[in-house]
């Protein structure tokens, strides 16, 4: 009996020991689990705290960014308004420039047309040249007539000389005839001088006429060349404005 009691007591003691050991083990494991849970909770709290901080920072940053965006938007709006105003001014300026360009084009066209029209002056210069030729022909005709007159006067001079000789031969009877012959010779001499003077005048007239009309002709060419130059410049200006 004693053995059985002992055995029972041992068994009870064993059960109690095992129970105690199991309790201790359970308590230790519980303690470990609690510690682990606490650590996890702490970690979680920390993470949550960090997340909250980040969120707070993000919200603050967002608020700050929102303000900055508002400022930028206001600035951009102001710039846009300015740009629109500038564009309007530029459009007006462009319109004014286009209007002025149109006017200049018109002016350049008018100058070119005027220069082209004035080149018709060449016909006027040509007419003057023809008149000069006509005048010079008349001068030559007068030269020829004066030459003829001169030869007649020379002939009269010889005739009057012969008459004087014949009058001298006739003696007293030819005295009156001698006086007439002498008068005729004097008149012929004066006519010869007049003819020489007239020839001189005709030569002077030739120089004046030729020099004047050549000056007109050359001046006309000079004007025509200058007008061509003006016309060309006006056309170049017109092409550039186009």
């Amino acid at each position, binding site marked *: 009996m004693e053995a059985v009691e002992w055995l029972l007591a041992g068994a009870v003691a064993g059960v109690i020991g095992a129970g105690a050991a199991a309790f201790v083990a359970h308590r230790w494991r519980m303690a470990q689990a609690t510690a682990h849970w606490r650590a996890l909770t702490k970690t979680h709290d920390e993470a949550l705290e960090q997340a909250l901080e980040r969120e707070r920072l993000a919200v603050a940053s967002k608020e700050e960014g929102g303000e900055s965006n508002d400022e930028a938007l206001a600035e951009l709006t102001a710039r846009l308004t300015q740009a629109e105003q500038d564009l309007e001014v530029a459009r007006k300026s462009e319109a004014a420039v286009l209007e002025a360009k149109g006017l200049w084009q018109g002016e350049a066209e008018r100058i070119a047309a005027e220069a082209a029209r004035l080149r018709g002056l060449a016909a006027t210069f040509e007419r003057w*040249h023809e008149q000069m030729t006509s005048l*010079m022909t008349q001068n030559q005709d007068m*030269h020829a007539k004066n030459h003829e007159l001169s030869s007649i006067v020379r002939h009269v001079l010889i005739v009057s000389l012969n008459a004087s000789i014949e009058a001298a031969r006739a003696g007293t009877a030819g005295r009156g005839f001698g006086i007439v012959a002498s008068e005729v010779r004097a008149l012929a001499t004066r006519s010869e001088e007049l003819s020489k003077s007239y*020839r*001189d005048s005709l*030569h*002077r007239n*030739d*120089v*004046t006429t*030729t*020099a004047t*009309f*050549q*000056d007109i*002709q*050359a*001046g*006309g*060419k*000079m*004007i*025509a*060349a*200058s007008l061509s130059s003006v016309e060309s410049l006006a056309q170049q200006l017109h092409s550039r404005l186009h």
Partner: protein
Amino acid sequence: MISAHARDSFERILTKAARTRLPRTPDASCDIVRLNVRQPGSAAMDTDVDLVARHANVVVLTISSIDFRMLLVLHFDEDDVTTRYFVGDDQDKPFREVFLEISNLCCGAINQELLGHFPDLGMSTPYVLSAHCVPHLMQLKPNHLASWDITLDGSVRLAATLCVCAHAPLDFNAELSETQDSSGELELF
């Protein structure tokens, strides 16, 4: 009215044009000698030349500008030597026509040189006058008058007179190249 430089330039331009345009070929001889011309109404020197007595006719050409006009007067005779020199074998062409063409080329060369100094220039067509007209050039009141004796091939005798009438002070200095250019040959009449 006309500066010494301008006078010298006109003379050099004329003598160069005569030397390059009047001879029949570029290498033909051309002697140009300055003449003292007897002027009507002035005291005559023994060395003075009476150009009216030396040549029968003249060709007159004018170059006009805004400030001046210049007359080129080429004195010539229609003798056999001169006619043969200029007409050559081409007997179909009248001497006057050939000589007027050559005179025009000569004046065209002067015009071309002057264009470098005066932008507005015009040239007349040539006209033949009696040499008796030459003394009357004085009535144009020239500011510069000069003459040269020109001998081509040692036998053909010509003369040239330059008459410049200025309406404003004239001053320029022409720098001429010695080479013969072909400019001025398109001056037709």
